[in-house]
């Protein structure tokens, strides 16, 4: 069992490398940019897949967590603390090497938070908010849970849209690259395209490894028990509230990680990233990939996001996702890949 799990990761790595070689050999290296973005989005989607497919809890607000991650990092790394140099807090941060100086637009020097510190802040705030929201929200079920998470997403959207500090409708641009280690930076420069692609795939593989191991552990079994019958799981001694909350927070943190990396990669973030349509789109991808099938979700996420980012669907982008969502839910609620399975294998129950 364990060997096959690592074999799956190895296959993923092989496919990722093959795609890179293919793109470079065919002279379409720019495809790697969209593939990188698709990989970061997939990181969010597989986290949501854990929450929806395994724990059985819908979230229509995950774009909110993506935005919390992205915006936190964007605000901290673009804020110029230079004018506040005299303040004690700025001096203390500076002494802790949490600030970096970088040239600003006018050739002067801007002092802003180090991307690693901003990254930590982004994850902590996403986790804290997920915790605060999750404790009451996860007591709800069905329609109420859907509406409550939708409501959370709406609040995040209207806050980033209505706050000047977050750039209101324009969003935040000019986010500097994120230098993970010297020489390895998350950013959009064309020369670092391959490097960024590899990095995104490695991050996605790490996320996948974490989740695959998780669903095959005690935690995974507990989550499936909750999905099957929450009362029964609770009666068997599964701490359902804690498992649901932990899963919710984990998926929120994964969304925030995706948000931070994609923001640094794109060099900016806008309020549309927090929109309800984005959340619905993530849910659509999880549904298409098959609830409770991480690899199915990952495959569909990579394919659909790549096609969408290439602009294949044109102005029908949202409509295509909605149509896919409806068709899958009407005809094959277990996901598209489920239809491809050998017909003589009995179907699992949803």
């Amino acid at each position, binding site marked *: 069992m364990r060997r096959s799990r690592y074999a799956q990761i190895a296959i993923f790595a092989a496919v990722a490398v093959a795609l890179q070689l293919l793109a470079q050999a065919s002279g379409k290296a720019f495809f790697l940019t969209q593939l990188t973005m698709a990989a970061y989005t997939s990181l969010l989607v597989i986290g949501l897949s854990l929450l929806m497919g395994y724990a059985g809890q819908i979230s229509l607000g995950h774009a909110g967590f993506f935005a919390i991650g992205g915006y936190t990092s964007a605000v901290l790394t673009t804020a110029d603390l230079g004018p506040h140099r005299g303040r004690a807090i700025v001096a203390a941060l500076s002494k802790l090497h949490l600030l970096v100086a970088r040239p600003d637009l006018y050739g002067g020097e801007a002092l802003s938070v180090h991307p690693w510190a901003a990254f930590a802040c982004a994850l902590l705030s996403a986790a804290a908010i997920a915790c605060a929201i999750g404790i*009451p929200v996860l007591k709800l079920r069905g329609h109420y849970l859907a509406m409550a998470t939708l409501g959370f997403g709406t609040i995040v959207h209207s806050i980033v849209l209505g706050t000047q500090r977050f750039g209101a409708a324009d969003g935040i641009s000019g986010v500097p690259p994120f230098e993970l280690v010297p020489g390895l930076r998350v950013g959009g420069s064309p020369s670092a395209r391959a490097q960024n692609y590899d990095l995104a795939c490695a991050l996605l593989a790490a996320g996948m490894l974490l989740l695959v191991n998780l669903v095959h552990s005690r935690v995974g079994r507990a989550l499936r028990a909750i999905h099957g019958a929450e009362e029964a799981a609770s009666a068997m001694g599964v701490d359902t509230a804690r498992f649901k909350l932990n899963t919710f927070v984990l998926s929120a943190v994964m969304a925030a990680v995706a948000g931070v990396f994609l923001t640094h990669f794109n060099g900016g973030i806008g309020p549309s990233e927090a929109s309800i349509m984005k959340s*619905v789109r993530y849910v659509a991808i999880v549904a298409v990939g098959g609830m409770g099938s991480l690899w199915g979700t990952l495959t569909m996420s990579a394919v659909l996001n790549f096609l969408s980012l290439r602009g294949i669907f044109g102005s029908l982008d949202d409509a295509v996702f909605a149509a896919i969502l409806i068709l899958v839910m*009407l005809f094959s609620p277990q996901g598209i890949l489920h239809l491809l399975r050998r017909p003589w294998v009995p179907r699992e129950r949803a």
Partner: protein
Amino acid sequence: MLLELFFQYLVAGLTYGTIYAIVGIGFNIIYNTTGIINFAQGEFVMLGGMTAVTLHRFLPLPAAILGAVLATMALGALIEVTFIRWLAKPAVLRMIVITIGVSILVREAALHLWGEGVRSLPYFTGNEVTSLAIGGVRVSPQVLWSLGACLVIVVLLHLFSRFTMLGRQMRACAQNRDAAALCGLPTRNLVTLSFVLSAGIGALAGCVVCPITYTQYGIGAGLAIKGFTVAILGGLGSSLAAVAAGFILGILESFSIWAMPTAYKDAISVAILLAILFWRPSGLFGDREAARLKAF
């Protein structure tokens, strides 16, 4: 002066409250017969307004509104027959996702059909600046029109469900669908009828408030969230409670502008929604015991 301002905010709150109330009633009608929350409810309001604006180019206003309501009702029936009718006992999660998908499809279709422009119907009586002085407060006649429409809808709906055979059948279906089917009631048709009714009510509301609030392809989603807030705030299933809750929400929202930037106005209703869901999911006027037994 302050008192006058207070009343102006109150009137504005009532106007928006009307439309929230009517969307909430629409949620209730469908929820009662099917147990489904129809996330596409707000789109009916948008479609009603948009269709009426288009029809008004060729037809007089009353005919345009009638046409818009009928067209939206037909679409409501179409949605039910295409996406919902033939599913046997679908899971809640599945229905949520399907109705959300439908609402996005409708919105995108409207975007391609009508573009992004903001439209409005002419005022039913008078124009933008006409106002009636009621006790020192200036009120646009259109506000009275929308309050009146809301009142008429609630009364007619009440009479319909109390005193007509069809209304009684719908109530039977709402109480226990299986039992109603065993008694020979055409439950599937009743479900379709509930979609038609709720679409018609939504479209009518969309037409009546359109001169004041304007309409655009994308207003549905926000209205759906607010209508749902209202339906929950009142306690799912009761129309009168939805009206009361609609006015409460409209007024709270209108006064929130005093305390907070307008950009956060939408966040208010969502915050109320979350608070209600956390502390009293049965709603202000709902029965706690009954709510506990329902499956959400």
